[in-house]
């Protein structure tokens, strides 16, 4: 890439930022915010890291739900897969790596290798599980993924291979990197935040690219009408299988990050009630939008934290989310992001804000046009709120 080319891009980006509330400006503000958060109070840094991880979990889940129309109640399996993968590597192979690469750098190397192993483990599990699950649809798909998730839960609890330490789970110790007299704790609040933020942003960008690729278009076509897609020569089952694997892998990355954040890989991660967190966040945020799960995760964690500041209410936060979930599905399926769009359209009027389509209408434009026209959202075109 030549210098002028780069310069041209930079100035193009600059003018895009100056022009108005474009995607570029949002991106820049987002990046600045992400950097500023790293300097916040430690607990807020922790809470925000938690949000990022749950957001990625829900985003991966929604790749299957919002984009392909398959509701999984077993994605906790992949969340746990990532977490246990890295936890077991850290526990069993940490000392081995210390011998090979030296004790100073080994915590970082082990962390990276563990993450890769966790992700690989998830993919290895997702390939057969997905292949079998996509044979079913609708409620039966929800049931079989629930069964696979609980099967994983049972196996982790019973621990026939002696790897998962049963009910207590595997403790995750990330260790301290020592390089030339400087020592940095990998699990330190701020460093872990930086690692998580970079990973989550990269993974989110990856998902964004996927849903706006021909692959993503096929996903949407299948969701709208599997029969028509089939008639067009698309191998529906195969495509769903591929989406399942990608979705599981994204959730697996979130699981890897979860292990280091929670400091323990516990069997509860595979339980259906954990899988349900992705469902809650996604539905509340708005499954029809790319950013729905992210906004939903934000609401989920910050409202929960807000509630936790009042001990009288703390025990009952689930009540709030149960009621919210029911209300959103019944009355406003576009969720929070849909609400924000509606609000903006009311405030700015139809002409402003880059001219996004109204939340309720179905965007039928070509993918590139859709990305141009909306600020930060590719709709999954799932606005079927009859």
């Amino acid at each position: 890439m030549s210098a002028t080319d780069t310069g041209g891009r930079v100035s193009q980006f600059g003018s895009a930022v100056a022009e108005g509330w474009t995607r570029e400006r949002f991106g820049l503000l987002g990046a600045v915010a992400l950097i500023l958060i790293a300097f916040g109070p430690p607990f807020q840094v922790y809470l925000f890291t938690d949000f990022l991880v749950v957001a990625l979990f829900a985003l991966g889940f929604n790749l299957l739900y919002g984009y392909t129309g398959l509701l999984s109640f077993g994605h906790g399996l992949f969340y746990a897969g990532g977490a246990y993968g890295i936890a077991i590597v850290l526990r069993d192979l940490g000392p081995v790596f210390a011998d090979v690469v030296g004790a100073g750098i080994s915590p970082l190397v082990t962390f990276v290798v563990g993450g890769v192993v966790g992700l690989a483990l998830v993919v290895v599990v997702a390939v057969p599980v997905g292949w079998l699950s996509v044979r079913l649809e609708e409620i039966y798909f929800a049931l079989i993924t629930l069964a696979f998730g609980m099967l994983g839960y049972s196996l982790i609890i019973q621990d026939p291979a002696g790897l998962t330490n049963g009910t207590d789970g595997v403790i995750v110790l990330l260790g301290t990197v020592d390089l030339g007299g400087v020592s940095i704790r990998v699990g330190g609040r701020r460093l872990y935040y930086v690692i998580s933020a970079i990973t989550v942003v990269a993974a989110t960008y990856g998902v964004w690219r996927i849903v706006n690729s021909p692959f993503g278009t096929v996903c949407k076509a299948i969701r709208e009408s599997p029969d028509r897609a089939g008639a067009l020569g698309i191998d529906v089952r195969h495509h769903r299988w591929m989406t399942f694997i990608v979705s599981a892998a994204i959730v697996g990355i979130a699981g890897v990050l979860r292990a280091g954040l929670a400091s323990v890989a516990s069997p509860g991660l595979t339980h259906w009630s954990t899988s349900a967190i992705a469902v809650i966040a996604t539905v509340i945020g708005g499954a029809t939008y790319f950013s729905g799960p992210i906004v939903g995760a934000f609401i989920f964690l910050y409202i929960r934290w807000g509630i936790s500041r009042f001990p009288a209410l703390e025990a009952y936060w689930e009540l709030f989310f149960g009621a919210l979930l029911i209300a959103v599905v019944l009355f406003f399926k576009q969720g929070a992001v849909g609400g924000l769009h509606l609000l903006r359209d009311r405030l700015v009027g139809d002409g402003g804000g880059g001219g996004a389509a109204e939340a309720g209408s179905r965007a039928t434009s070509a993918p590139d046009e859709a990305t141009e026209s909306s600020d930060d959202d590719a709709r999954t075109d799932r606005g079927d709120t009859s």
Partner: protein
Amino acid sequence: MSFTSLVPLIGISDVVIGLSLGSRLFLIAVGLSLIFGVLGVLNFAHGGFYMLGAYVTLAVVSNVIDNFWVAAAAGALAVGVVGAAIELSAIRRLYNRVDSDLDQLIVTFGFVLVIHETVRFIWGSGSYSIDPPDVFNFSVALGGSTFNAYRLVVIGLAVAVLVGLWLFITRTYFGSLVRGTSSDREMAAMLGVDVPRLYTGVFFLGSVLAGLGGALSAPLQATSPALGDQVIIDAFIVVVIGGLGSMSGAFVGAMLIGMMQSLGPQFISAGSIAIPFLAMVIVLLLRPEGLFGGIGE
């Protein structure tokens, strides 16, 4: 341990315990299955209904009237009313949606959270238990082991419910409407069946059965807010194995899982709690309609 040495360990009490566990599972699963068969709704909150039935029974016995049977009936009815209210206020709005199945599942999951937390708010997070009704509260010693006679009552009642439901569905006018509507809703509506009312009625009946299951089980288990979440997964396994919508399937499936739960601890082997889930996966893949047929069978 060799296989032959294990066989004599299965006592009569293990079988009775297994069947009584199966009976309570049947009562929750049959309502779940009935609702799915007729309305096409998979009610995630059915475990919550079961738990609510147990709590109401406990509360009535201790605060209102010291008669278990009256309290159990009150528990079952109260849950029926809650179920009907949920159908009327929420689930009804979803029948005509494109993704009605999934939306219904998510909404009923919302009610799982709501019921769980409401119960916790009213009764706290500890656990309660009561004795079986006095008449049946004695130990039966058979084959060297003992069990409470009340377990036999629960098994008998489950069989009675199965027979009663079967007669109701196959021999009564309302039953014929239910069968007709479950196989072809539009046709039934054209023939003058008040489908919305029938749906509410079936949801009420299914909820009553779950409440009854909870009420009858109250003397056999500790009732705590966690109960609903535990039992709904077992009920899903049962209805999948038996076939969603099948009553006899729910019975056989429930007895299978009940026996497995009873005998499981005797044959400890790694992965034993995984077996029901494995069975669920296999049935879903090979016979998604379950091992038994459709409604009324």
